[in-house]
């Protein structure tokens, strides 16, 4: 799935489904599970309907009647500082993760170095 058509076309994956929404909601609008379900059905169908390598299915959903959001998106740099310590959503997550003994945890992976 993608909401950045030009970036996806540059990468050129085997198949893609494009949702013309602002970035940060590639799988549908917040709090709208029926819409999310409809988007996902359209996206999954692309697995079997696209027959040409590199094709993109344009999903039939619009963010809003107005296209004004397109003129302002990514006009400022809102990225957070690059820090090399884990950035937890909640402090209690940090406590929980730091209590992990490592021996029993098989869920945090570092990819093997070639």
């Amino acid at each position: 799935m993608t909401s950045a058509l030009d970036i996806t076309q540059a990468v050129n994956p085997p198949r893609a489904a494009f949702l013309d929404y602002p970035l940060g909601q590639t799988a549908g609008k917040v709090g709208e599970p029926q819409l999310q379900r409809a988007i996902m059905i359209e996206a999954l169908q692309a697995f079997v309907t696209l027959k040409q390598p590199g094709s993109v299915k344009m999903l039939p959903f619009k963010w809003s009647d107005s296209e004004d959001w397109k003129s302002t998106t990514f006009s400022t740099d809102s990225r957070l500082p690059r820090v090399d310590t884990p950035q937890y959503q909640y402090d209690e997550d940090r406590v929980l993760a730091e209590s992990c003994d490592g021996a029993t945890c098989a869920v945090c992976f570092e990819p093997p170095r070639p």
Partner: protein
Amino acid sequence: MGEPVRYIERIQCLYQGLGYPAYRWTVNETEPPWTPVTKPLRDCRLMLIASGGIYLAGQVAFHYKDDSSYRAIPKDAPASALRATHFAYDLANARRDLRCVFPLETLRGLAAEGFFGELASHAYTFMGGIYSTRRVNTELAPALVARAQEEKADLALLVPV
């Protein structure tokens, strides 16, 4: 549908204005690899892979400096234990309703309806915004492919942010 946003051009302008060196976008000009889907969706095992910085409470969160690690999220993980962290997109929406960047619940519902066969045992998550394409190409992507093969996934659905 109106003209899609041209992000490459826009981000190049933004970075140039901030005095950053030009970002080298990945451009693949050869035909992508192609594996035909030979089964109907209702018989397929699907693996969700997402780049939105999702972790499960108890796991180490992602950091914001070229973190190329990944997390395995069990397919039945409760929504209440899922978190999002990322340096490069506004997390407000994802933290209100994670399904908009990590559609695990949506996919669980569609599997239960029989729209596709089943989810793989785990979804895999990482944090995009990794500037080293070499590390993505030689470390992260091969590791995720290996997981998909180990879990015998027929389909891999990548949800970037």
